[in-house]
């Protein structure tokens, strides 16, 4: 080791001895955040109502907002224009061969819709709806999906929890450890595993261009 390298090592050792007791605690470089600051950041809405803002809106009011701020992508009745997402329909299709998973047929909670719209919509101008608009447009989406029947039903932080979506009970937590237990196996076949091998193949042509003209749908 060269003299200077040795000197550096000694210096580092000295620093770490000095720094030792200090670093054993907290570095504490975060600044404390006040409730007011956090309120500006936290816009999450939970199924139990935590996070619901103060506000009020009806489906009738929401329809107007929807036509001016949402329909150009999602269609007048949420049917989805071009490749934009469909926002209504699909009720009762989840067991069918072509399940139609929409906010009405698939999503578990009205809070999921409002939380998402509050974070992300209108696409391209996110977080621009007032709280009243947010309730109104959510009410309209619920009406499009036959979940709210009365266009004048006042959706607000007090009535919100009375709205239930049909697929709320349709989800359960990861159970692969038990339901897919057969995939943990010590007897994976090595030889004579199949009498005959059936091959399905050769669908469409190989077509992937870097300009992104093609691509399977990814949600």
């Amino acid at each position, binding site marked *: 080791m060269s003299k200077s390298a040795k000197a550096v090592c000694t210096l580092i050792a000295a620093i770490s001895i000095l720094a030792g007791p200090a670093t054993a605690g907290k570095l504490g470089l975060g600044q404390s955040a006040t409730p007011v600051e956090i309120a500006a950041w936290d816009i*999450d809405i939970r199924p139990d109502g935590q996070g619901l803002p103060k506000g009020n809106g009806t489906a009738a009011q929401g329809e107007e907002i929807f036509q001016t701020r949402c329909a150009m992508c999602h269609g007048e009745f949420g049917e989805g224009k071009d490749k934009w997402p469909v926002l209504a329909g699909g009720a009762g299709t989840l*067991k069918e061969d072509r399940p139609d998973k929409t906010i009405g047929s698939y999503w578990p909670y009205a809070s999921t819709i409002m939380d998402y719209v509050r974070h992300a919509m209108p696409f*391209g101008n996110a977080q621009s709806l007032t709280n009243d608009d947010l309730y109104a447009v959510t009410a309209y989406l619920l009406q499009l999906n036959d979940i709210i029947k009365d266009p004048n039903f006042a959706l607000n932080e007090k009535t919100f929890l009375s709205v239930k979506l049909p697929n709320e009970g349709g*989800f359960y937590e990861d159970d692969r450890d038990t339901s897919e237990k057969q995939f943990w196996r*010590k007897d994976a076949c090595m030889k004579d595993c199949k009498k005959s091998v059936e091959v399905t*193949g050769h669908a*469409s042509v190989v077509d992937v261009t870097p300009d992104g003209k093609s691509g399977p749908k990814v949600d």
Partner: protein
Amino acid sequence: MRETFSTDDLQPAAGGGLLHRRVLLKAGLILASAGAAQPALAAAGKKPAVESDLAHPSWTREPGQPFTNYGLPSKHEAAVMRSVGANHDVPGNGVSWTPLESLEGILTPAGLHFERHHNGVPAIDPAQHRLVIHGLVKQPLMFTVESLLRYPMTSHLIFVECGGNSNAGWHQEPIQRPVGSFHGLVSCSEWTGVPLSILLDEAGLDPKALWAVAEGADAMLMNVSIPVEKLMKDCIVALYQNGERIRPENGYPLRLIAPGWEGVLNVKWLRRIQLTDQPVMARNETAKYTELLPSGRSRMFTFVVDAKSLLTSPSCGQSLSGPSVYELKGLAWSGRGRIAMVEVSADGGASWTRAQLQDPVLPRCFTRFRAAWKWDGQPAVLKSRATDETGYVQPERAALVAERGRHGYFHYNAIVSWGVDAEGKVSHVYA
């Protein structure tokens, strides 16, 4: 000295001409590789029409290019790029795939790491970016990027895989695309950053804090719930990817890294972590990344990535140039830990033999495997099958579909089959 290869080693170890993996350790066996199908590349290596002086090309005589501050790949490799699949009307909504067929080893170059954006790549000024930790904590905290850079860091060499990767596998007919444009929503990097447990300890966890909601700073403030147990165990707030600061499209300046768990939990542009007693039930943990099963009900919080493997060569769209001994090579990974074993088959899964795993074999990281295959020119079906250290064996497609139906959309990890025809053309098949 390495043992020398002998013709005895050409005795097959499994059907269709697969050789024992020991031949890969011997000297003297030269393996052929499948090539890209493009005629231009097939011609590479042939002598050019105008005879040039290969012994004295111009670059051995004339000065080369000056230094560069940031190097780029050779212009001759310009075709190696991510393929983009985006919404026509909103170019920032979609994905780009890692070209797995063009890469070797286990690390994905940062510029080729797959992307999934909902509304484009935010142009974040790090000086104005904050990470807020709040909710069920003793002291809510706000961190600047600058302050996070001063914390002790750790690195994980791990893969990140989108829960929607390989979803074309559920289609009734096998999609014909290069392997990367079908399975390339997975990439592997070294991620370096601050263990989240340090920051959560500083904020002081309330014992009721069982969940956290992580949120990114993109133009939809993507939010998703994650159990605190995982955050405390091995999650990091990453600042670096492959040694340099994370690229904008991969989450600059901060990304939550949740080793072995599906991509959406690895929140890019991380700006907020709220500690809670229950999940928020956001769109990306209910409407998306849940698997609709034949019962009509759906599995949610399918966090851990099941073991998976695939051959990157030969693979769909490539071709073999006649009977020879070929190298089979591919990638295997598991969110549950290390890859314990990869087996390969050349007869559509009727028989199997073990592939050679290349060091290093790390938990929750790509593992590169190789095998030797003597192709006799007959049609063949190539497969690989991964087993991880928990004993999970990658299922055949038929078994996965029998278990989950075809409408789960997410988390497809079945064995991948490549059909080789008598001309040596490789396509995607189900077998």
